[in-house]
Every structure is written in C-alpha cells, then in structure tokens.
C-alpha cells in the first residue's frame, strides 16, 4: 500500500512536470500553430539567470524563484519578438525548423557564455526533502510539484474563462482572424500566449533546478521532447489534451520503470516513444484533438 502511494505520487509529480511544460507548448501552438521547441531553452535560460542572480544579488531562494519565473517570461516574450514574428502565419514545418534553429542558437550561447559542464545552483535543493506522512515516506518536492501544477492549471483556467485576453486566446485558437476583426491586437494575444508559456516554463524550471541543482546548456531539451510527446498524445493544440498527455506520460514512465526489470531502465524513454507512435497510428490527431472550424460558405 505504501509502495503504491509512493509510486502514485511519483507518477503524479513526473506527470505534473510534463504537464506544465506541455501546457506551455500547447498554448503557443493553439494560437499560432508553432511547435516551440525553443521552450526548453527558455527553461535553461531561467536556470542560467538563477546562477547569475544567485552570484550577483541574493541567495534568498524565494527572491530567486520570482527572478527565475520573471526571466523565463522575459525570454519567452523576447523570443517571439526576435525570432517567431517573422514566421507568423508560415506553415508548420517552417515554424518547427525555426524553433529548432532558435533552440540551437540558445544552447550554443549558453555554451559560449557559460560552460559545457554543469554549473551548480543549489538554492532550491531544500525543496526536496524526505518527509513522513504517517508510515509513508515521500519527497516534499513531489508534493510541491503536484500541488503547484494543479494550482497553475486552475489559475490558467480562470484566466482563460474570465478575462478578456484569455477569452481572446481561446477564440484565437479557433479563428484568429475573426478575433482581430473584433479589434483585438494580434500582437497582444500572441505576446500573452508566450508570456503564459514562459510563466509555466519558469515554474517547471524551479522544480527542475530543485532536482538537478545545476544548469547545463542542454538541460531543457529532453523535458521539452517529452512534453512535446505529451502534447501529441493529448492532441496538439488542446490544452486539456496537454495536461492529460503529461499525466499519462508520467504514469506510463513510472509504470514502465516498475514493470520492466531494473536493468532495462534506460529503455523507459524508448517504450514511451513507441507508445506515442502507436497512439498516432491509432488516432493521427491525438486523443483530445480540438475541432477545427473555418468560416466556410454554407
């Protein structure tokens, strides 16, 4: 029983991290059809900012957390301005390759100005403690992670349903041109999407840093690859799909780790990706793919 609860929490926290990152990808994709592979570098940028702020400003972890989130929001919005505005409205492949290009540029900038080796940044490590609830011993980080993700999802739902900008984003996912015809500035909607995406990346960054305790140029690539897969499983562009996909992947990964013999741990990723390929063949548009509507003549 204890084992089951521990593993469930494991799955939830894995899933929470994937869901956070996947939501960041999905919100941008739903609005401008861009698969933002540079999202991982936004996370890494948060990590490097943390190193810089930690050295120059303060070691207070709570100030640093705010700083990390702010840095990620800044990076995300800045990327849109500098790189993705030129490919707005371009086809999917163009956007995807641009995002990959941006991702490579950023990774190499980190390499140039940082170091290929990990740089320690341990201010958030304190989040990860083993705590005992009754007879069960769990990691506090996993609880924080799960709770924060759920809160972030609720806040996002509130934003999307109750604010004008949020509504415009939901509407833009369906018919961006019509949203502009209502006088809503396209730049604001897109900047808003990238800001939210950056915010979610910032939260993910805090947890990743709490677990790793160091930054590296490529640190964002693998999480985003997995989050990308989560989006695919859930149906690209669907926000509930991204969350569902994230948690499904978390559960799958933990299940694979439990079910496969210890020695096959390295294959967890392979199994997960194989499942994705199967899902795509079964439902090419993902499980919860959004309905696409266009203002066709009746």
């Amino acid at each position, binding site marked *: 029983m204890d084992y089951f609860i521990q593993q469930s929490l494991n799955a939830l926290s894995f899933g929470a991290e994937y869901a956070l990152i996947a939501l960041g990808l999905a919100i941008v994709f739903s609005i401008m059809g861009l698969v933002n592979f540079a999202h991982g570098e936004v996370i890494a940028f948060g990590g490097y900012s943390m190193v810089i702020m930690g050295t120059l400003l303060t070691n207070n972890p709570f100030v640093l957390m705010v700083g990390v989130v702010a840095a990620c929001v800044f990076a995300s919005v800045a990327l849109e301005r500098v790189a993705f505005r030129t490919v707005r409205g371009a086809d999917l492949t163009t956007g995807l390759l641009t995002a990959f290009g941006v991702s490579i540029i950023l990774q190499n900038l980190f*390499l140039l100005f940082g170091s290929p080796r990990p740089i320690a940044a341990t201010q958030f490590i304190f989040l990860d403690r083993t705590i005992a609830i009754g007879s069960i011993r769990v990691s506090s980080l996993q609880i924080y992670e799960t709770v924060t993700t759920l809160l972030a999802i609720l806040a996002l739902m509130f934003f999307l349903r109750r604010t004008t900008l949020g509504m415009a984003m939901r509407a833009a996912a369906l018919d961006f041109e019509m949203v502009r015809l209502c006088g809503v500035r396209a730049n604001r909607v897109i900047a808003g999407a990238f800001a939210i995406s950056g915010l979610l990346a910032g939260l993910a960054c805090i947890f990743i840093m709490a677990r790793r305790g160091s930054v590296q140029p490529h640190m964002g690539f693998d999480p985003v690859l997995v989050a990308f*897969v989560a989006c695919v499983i859930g149906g690209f562009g669907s926000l509930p799909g991204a969350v569902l996909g994230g948690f499904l992947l978390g559960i799958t990964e933990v299940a694979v780790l439990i079910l496969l013999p210890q020695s096959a741990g390295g294959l967890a990723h392979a199994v997960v990706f194989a499942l994705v390929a199967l899902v*795509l063949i079964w439902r090419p548009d993902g499980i919860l793919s959004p309905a696409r509507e266009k203002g066709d003549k009746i």
Partner: protein
Amino acid sequence: MRFLPLNSAQRQGLLGSAMLSLLILAIVGAYYLWGESYQARMLYAVFVNLLVVVGLQVFTGNANITSFSHAAFMGIAAYVAAICVTPIAMKAISLPDAPWGLNAFELSALSAALLALLITGLLGLATGLFMARLTGVGVTIVSIAILVIVHSIFLYRTDIFKGNQALFGIPKIFDLPQITALVIVAIFIARAFRESAVGLKLRASADDEVGARAMGVDVFKVRLIAWVVGTLFFATAGIAYAFYLGTISARPFYFNFVFLTVSMLILGGLRSVTGAVFGTLMISMGLELVRWLETGPVISGIKFPEVLGLSGLLLGVVIVAVMAFLPRGIMGNREIEDFVKRKR
C-alpha cells in the same frame, strides 16, 4: 540520344546531374592537387553528409514533409555493416558480450554492405507503411519518435552497440575514390527520382494533396516509395561512414547530426537536388571555417580566444535566417542546368 525514352525534364536531369558530378570531381581533383592529407578525412565527412542530404531530398524535398529519423537509419546501417565486417578476432575484444553469436562470424565487405542495406531497407519499409499514412506533422512527430527509440536502444544494448563508447576495430574499406563514386551515383539517382513519374506525382501531392488524389495519384504509394528510397540513401551513408572511420558510436546518430543535415537541405532549397548539394557544400565550408576560429587560431600575429559553440551558433543562425528570409532556400525550385539554359 534517342535510344532512351526520356522526356525533356529527365534529359535535363541527366545534364544537371552531370554538371553536379563535375563539381564534385573538381572538388576531389582540387584536393588531390593541392590538398593536405588531413583534409581527406574532412572531405570524406562532407561526402557522407552529402549522401544523407541528397537522400533527405528524396522524401523530405519531394513530399515537402520534414522528417528527422534519417540519423537513426544511418546509425542502424552503420552498426550492421560494422558488426558484420569486423573480423572475429577483433570482435572478441571489441564486443566480448555480444549475444546471438554476433561476434562469431564475419562477412566480406560486399555482403556486409548488402546485408546492412537489406535490413535498413526492410525497417524503412516497415516504418514507411505507417509513415505514408500519416499527415505532414504526424510524420515529423513519429520520425522524432523513431530517432529517440533507436537512440535509446543503441545506448541501452551496450553489449551490441557499445552505447556512447566506441565500437572499434572496423577495417577501413572505403576511401575517397569510393565515396566520390557513391556520391555521384546518388546524385544521379536522386535526380532521376525527382524527374520520374513517382517523383512528379509526389511533388504534385506536396503542392495540393487533395488535387493530386483527385487526379488519381496514389499518395500513399508514392510516399512509401520515396520513404524507402530515402532510407536506402541513409543506409549507404551509414555504411560509408563505418567503412572509413574504423570506429563508430551512438552519439553522432542523434539530434545534432539531424539538425546539421536538415539545415543543409533547407539552406540549399528542399525542392531541388542541386540545392541539397549546394547547401551541404556551403554549410560544410562555413562550419570548417568557424571550427578553425573556434580553436582560437593565430591570425596575423593575433591569438584569438577559444570559443566553444560558435559553429553550433552559426548553424542555428543559418536555419533561422533561411526560414525567415529565404523559406524556399537558395535554389527554390530550380536545378543547376536552369542557370545554363537562361544564359542561352
């Protein structure tokens, strides 16, 4: 030239391929005349990339669907060829724990290469049956899945693939003349494919899939053919890679190589074989220059600092700039002979 039943596009294809081959021969000739021996390795690597990029053009270019799995197929072929061709005595040291008697046999270079082509081709066929059914984005996504799966297996089965360690002791079978011949053959085949009925149908379906279907094009079939043909190019590149370097490891067959080759293709222009060749040559030269700068060279007495990551940075900038300002690449839809024709 009346004995071949070729249409005018195909005749032009022959002309274009011949011109590209002359360019390749000129480069090789220049090396033999003025090159230094360390540059042979460099040139060989460029030609391996060229095989891959021309192969990419076959599927990605003609179908206009980005795929990232080529490094996986190249890796599979490289490992198959390497494991088959390495002498038993050597495998006893390099692969002591290999299962299924993999270290208890050896094949001639030719049969090893053919077996590698066969296995990779069959895998290409198996994946292609699914790939050809998917929509554009689906292919990209599943191709990433294939890349990750294959890479995970390379890393996991260290008893066969040695993971990130080197699988060493592969005899050196190919050298510059062989790869030059392969590249020239590849250019002719890729161009012939582009101008063939299948290639034409594929390009038509890329422009307007519904329209092409309505005209009776079996999109599934033409995509499948292109996918398998492309896979064979990657397999050839993998074999050539293993047959020259003497050691292989899993690391080169992953995302970095994928980005490198895809950016070569998009810089030159997806839709043209000439573009694939030009893009490869230009990025290879640019990277060589930057790599030299990276090491901190001494130029006219000034020692420049060592800057890691400059080559990667350049690659990223090329991709972003091409996508933003030149989305159809340098060549667009044109081929090399179009320049000659216009001057007439």
